[in-house]
């Protein structure tokens, strides 16, 4: 019987809700966020992103400050995308007691702007020697690197052409370019890939006309010791555009960051709103119900909390204590509960005058019974509506605190992404894809709940009044 009643109430509510377009839009957004949270593990390209957001080594294979891939669609010069060549041609050989492993990668270059970096990676141990050679479509072959590596315990071999083959590239260029040009080049500022993927001709340093076609990269690993092992070689092409939302200047994938931020935004928003609205509603009702002296006392306490500016307190508290998401939520609750108090108090004052409250008193009902059985149930619609409206507030506050660099260091939130962007001068450098997506997400999440809240307010409020 009770379940059926609830069902009817809900279906009635839904009928009304459907009429409010903005509410439907809000609900749609909310559903979208929920779906993204549920499928987060599947959608994340970097599964450890949640724990290793601030671990630079986790992101090292990504391009730096790369715009999203789809920007290629809008620009006349196509930037090379990022990719991983994982299944190379593998050849083992033995030459004079030296074991050798030869990986051959074929990269089809069809862009106007060369990749930022080409990284050869492999696993293993020992001290192998690695030779990297590069064959261009025009038949030129360049020996890029010839070096001894110590793999140590990490067992990871990582060779970056961007870092280690600057001189070789300049050398290659000087075969075509005038000496006066190549001599002036500062090797530390040269990206070798820009030379390697350009047509070999005079003026190539300056004009850099891309040479499209099939490039062959050969990595020869010479295992000098008996126990040396190298396996799983792969080539990572670090393009100039990356993923859905690009990367920041710490090479972090922003799509991953935004995606991982959804659940925290929801958690912060909903938890703060539920706790603080519940507190505020109970406080307001009790104040209105008791009336007289206690009402005055409670309202003065309330006014103290209202007049304390939240942000400075939050900043100080975050600076004093180790900022964690939980202390942040707690702090926000301590100040957010005041929000609904005034409205609830005035509503409760009306309800208090209802005859059925007096009837209940005449029956001998206790204060607690009257407050929790008769008064608060009537305020539940309002509570839900105001919760929905407080959620965006909490999300924005967390972002603000994070923006000031005082967020929880163990998680990634939209506010923190924004904060990093600000500190790295993302706006000045035109890295808009670092700023817009998290900002937009905050706005959308806020909007979703604000719309739901307004719609609920519209539906539930008049009912309360006309009863």
């Amino acid at each position: 019987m009770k379940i059926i009643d609830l069902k009817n109430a809900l279906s009635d509510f839904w009928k009304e809700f459907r009429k409010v377009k903005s509410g439907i839009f809000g609900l749609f957004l909310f559903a979208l966020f929920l779906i993204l949270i549920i499928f987060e593990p599947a959608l994340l390209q970097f599964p450890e992103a949640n724990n290793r957001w601030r671990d630079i080594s986790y992101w090292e294979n990504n391009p730096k400050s790369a715009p999203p891939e789809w920007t290629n669609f809008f620009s006349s010069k196509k930037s090379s995308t990022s990719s991983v060549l994982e299944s190379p041609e593998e050849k083992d050989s033995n030459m004079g007691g030296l074991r050798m492993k030869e990986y051959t990668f074929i990269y089809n270059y069809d862009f106007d702007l060369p990749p930022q970096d080409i990284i050869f990676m492999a696993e293993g141990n020992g001290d192998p020697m690695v030779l990297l050679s590069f064959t261009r479509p025009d038949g030129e072959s360049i020996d890029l690197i010839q070096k001894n590596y110590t793999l140590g315990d990490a067992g990871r071999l990582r060779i970056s052409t961007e870092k280690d083959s600057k001189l070789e590239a300049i050398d290659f260029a000087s075969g075509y370019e005038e000496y006066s040009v190549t001599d002036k080049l500062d090797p530390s500022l040269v990206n070798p890939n820009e030379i390697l993927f350009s047509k070999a001709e005079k003026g190539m340093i300056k004009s850099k006309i891309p040479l499209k076609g099939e490039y062959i990269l050969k990595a020869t690993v010479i295992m000098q010791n008996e126990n040396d092992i190298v396996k799983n070689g792969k080539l990572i092409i670090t393009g100039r555009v990356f993923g859905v939302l690009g990367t920041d200047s710490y090479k972090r994938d922003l799509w991953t960051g935004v995606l991982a931020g959804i659940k925290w935004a929801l958690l912060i928003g909903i938890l703060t709103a539920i706790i603080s609205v519940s507190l505020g509603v109970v406080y307001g009702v009790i104040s209105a119900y008791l009336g007289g002296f206690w009402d005055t006392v409670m309202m003065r306490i309330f006014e103290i909390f209202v007049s304390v500016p939240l942000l400075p307190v939050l900043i100080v508290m975050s600076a004093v204590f180790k900022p964690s998401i939980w202390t942040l939520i707690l702090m926000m609750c301590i100040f957010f509960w005041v929000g609904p108090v005034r409205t609830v108090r005035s509503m409760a004052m009306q309800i208090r005058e209802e005859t059925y409250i007096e009837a209940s008193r005449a029956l001998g009902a206790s204060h607690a019974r009257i407050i929790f059985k008769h008064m608060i149930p009537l305020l539940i619609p309002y509570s839900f509506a105001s919760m929905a409206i407080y959620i965006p507030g909490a999300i924005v506050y967390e972002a603000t605190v994070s923006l000031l660099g005082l967020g929880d260091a163990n998680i990634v939130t939209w506010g923190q992404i924004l904060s990093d962007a600000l500190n790295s001068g993302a706006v000045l450098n035109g890295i808009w894809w670092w700023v817009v997506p998290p900002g937009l997400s905050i706005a959308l999440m806020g909007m979703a709940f604000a719309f739901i809240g307004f719609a609920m307010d519209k539906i539930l409020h008049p009912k309360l009044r006309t009863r």
Partner: protein
Amino acid sequence: MNYENGKKENIYEIKNLQKWFPVRRTMKEYLNKEQRYIKAVDGITFNIKRGEIFGLVGESGCGKTTTGKLLMKLLEPTGGELVFNGKEVTHLNHSSLEDYRTKVQMIFQDPYASMNPRFKIRDVLEEPLLIHMKNEERIKRTERIKKALAEVRLQPPEEFMERFPHMLSGGQRQRAATARSLILNPDMIVADEPVSMIDLSTRAEILHMMKSVQRDLGLTYLYITHDLSTARYFTDTIAVMYLGRIVEMGDPDEVIDNPLHPYTKALITAVCEPVAGKVNRIKEVPIKGEVPSAMRIPSGCRFHPRCPYAEEKCMIPGIQPELEDTGRRHSVACFRFKEI
């Protein structure tokens, strides 16, 4: 004031009961330490006999509802004494108040407003049981609810229990409200205008029901109303209030057919009657103006500014007419009732 109404004992004795509401002070009054009061109830004395229906009649603002609330212990009296069942109940502590609440119950004017719209009739009736008999089993509570609903003739009880107040008609709602007040087996019920919000066609039905319940269970009612016609039919004793005082009290037939106080006389002439030949005739209403505010009560007899018979002796400050027995179970508070 007392009548010897048979040998019945008094269930409730009200002695010089007062309720003054302080008025919010202006700054000047605050500095002069003055305090004005709204004297809603200003010294009333009457007894309610066990098993009778006592009617308290008056216009709005005369203090009849305040009296009801004072007897319900919803308000604390400013002065006077209340004796219920031989025990003083003027001021009660928490535990004795709980006990008192099981003995005295109330029916409100608006049956819809007096029930939480989110409660089913079952929940409405269960509330007093949950408050006062916490340990009773649910099945027994359900039995009691069914019994109470059957008493007020809401049949079948099982069906009505599952309904919400707004699904009932006005009459059915007031029956349910009556059932709620009966469920704890009280001695006395204060009924504040129980039928004034109910359609005329069903009003009598509710009064019938209340009367038969009263007879069956030996209840005592305090019936508060502005309607002299139903009071005459419904009550055993009637008291007319004006500005916080009782001006006339006695047997309802006697008071209405033979009123002594000029105010009662005016009230009775003013009542409309459904008989022919009254249209297009201006009715003589002997008193002028309206009831003054209870904040500025006229000195002397408080009715004198509106009274067509007022003399100098009615206006002497500090001297108010007291209820005076005329025999015939009828008493009146007027200096000049013998002359007029």
